[in-house]
């Protein structure tokens, strides 16, 4: 069976799988970005308790395997009385993991904003919160976008792991088709191509566009 014939026959399942993968991507990306921002600010805080919470979080989620984290959320948390539906468990684990990596990106970008910007904002007497939101973060965002592009591609590929807790994503559907037809080359070949297309022809151009748009906004381009 050629790849084309394969796709012609199994496209509905591949399509729902892809749709679920895309949904997982957006949910975990939103969660990851929010966590990254909060953890970065906490790690830069002058309050020791906040700083240490962030450091612990980042250490745990960067230092251990995403798959093990996923199993913890899905299999271990119910033992403590937190039963989480598998789709939710999927994007929670991936998002929390990527948030830990993202926190370091955000923190690095904040610290690399020129000192003079802090001083100028202080000289017009802005509050610490406004200095961060209105002056530092917009500039930091421009600096960290290229690194986020990388991280989001990692995240997209990382979502494939949720198939291991039976979330019906693209990888899960490919495995199911393979299990019933033994068309391994076609099933996993199609999955490979779809992941590549999503990363290379949708995500990457979008990030490039965002980088350019932000650079223009800051007057750099």
């Amino acid at each position, binding site marked *: 069976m050629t790849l084309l014939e394969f796709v012609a026959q199994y496209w509905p399942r591949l399509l729902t799988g892809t749709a679920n993968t895309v949904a997982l991507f957006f949910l975990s990306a939103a969660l990851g970005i929010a966590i990254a921002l909060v953890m970065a600010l906490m790690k830069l805080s002058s309050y020791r308790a906040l700083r240490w919470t962030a450091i612990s979080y980042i250490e745990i989620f960067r230092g251990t395997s995403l798959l093990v984290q996923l199993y913890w959320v899905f299999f271990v948390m119910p033992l403590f009385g937190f039963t989480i539906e598998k789709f939710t468990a999927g994007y929670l684990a991936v998002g929390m993991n990527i948030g830990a990596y993202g926190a370091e990106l955000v923190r690095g970008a904040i610290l690399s904003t*020129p000192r*003079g*910007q802090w*001083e*100028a*904002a*202080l*000289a*017009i*007497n*802005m*509050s*610490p919160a*406004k200095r961060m939101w*209105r*002056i530092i973060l*917009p*500039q930091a965002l*421009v600096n960290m976008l290229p690194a986020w592009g990388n991280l989001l591609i990692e995240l997209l590929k990382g979502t494939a792991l949720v198939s291991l807790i039976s979330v019906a994503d693209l990888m899960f559907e490919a495995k199911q088709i393979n299990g019933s037809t033994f068309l391994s080359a076609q099933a996993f070949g199609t999955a490979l191509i779809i992941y590549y297309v999503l990363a290379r022809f949708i995500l990457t151009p979008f990030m490039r566009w965002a980088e350019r748009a932000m650079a223009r*906004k*800051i*007057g*750099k381009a």
Partner: protein
Amino acid sequence: MQNLVGYPLELTGEDTPMVRFTNVRKSYGPLVVLDDLNLDVAEGEMVSIIGPSGSGKTTVLRMLMTLETINGGCIYVDGKPLTHMPKNDKLVLANTRYLRERRADIGMCFQHFNLFPHMTALQNCMEGPVQVLGLSKTEARERSEELLELVGMIDKKDQHPSRLSGGQQQRVAIARALAMRPKVMLFDEVTSALDPEVIGEVTNVIRALVSQHKLTMLMVTHQMGFARDISDRVCFFYGGKIEEQGPPADLFGNPQKERTQKFLSAVSEAI
């Protein structure tokens, strides 16, 4: 840590200076940058600070802008302590809230302009009035456009800093600081990073401010001619102390101390 004993909680009387440094000390670890500085600046006075690099000139302005903490003594602005606050009839180190309240009296321009790159010239000027003073956008725009007009930058009000020359950026930075209506303006080597041919456009703005406004100003500069022209008083700093001070005609024309003479002759040879 630094509770001050014997310092007034407030300066009162006719001759209260706009700025007073009382026994101010600043050190970085073992390195003493300013040693027991005493300096008064009267309301409306323009004081220039000159001296070799490392003599503590810029630190004076940075302490006054509260960008640096001090290690001893007290700074007063408009009669009220700046670095310290009154508590139970004593002066204790100022907390952030008190600092924010007092800092409103002071504006500063920097050597490298430090305009916000993601905002236009007009937005740079409006940022403080809107976000800090709580002015409406209309009021803030009116005030900012007036000041951009004053510094000759109204034509470029919608440009981002990256589109402006150094001299233009510095003029916008002056407008941005003035938009906060400070009582004291600080100019920290505002022409040092500029190409020679655009220095004039910035010094002309400062000249106009001196002649038309009753602002109190402190300026750190390497431009002796400019300092001589516009200052009411010039302070020569050496090794963290004021070595000599006086009206520009005296200090430049007839310096008394040997270090001042050496410095001034070294500077004039360089030109």
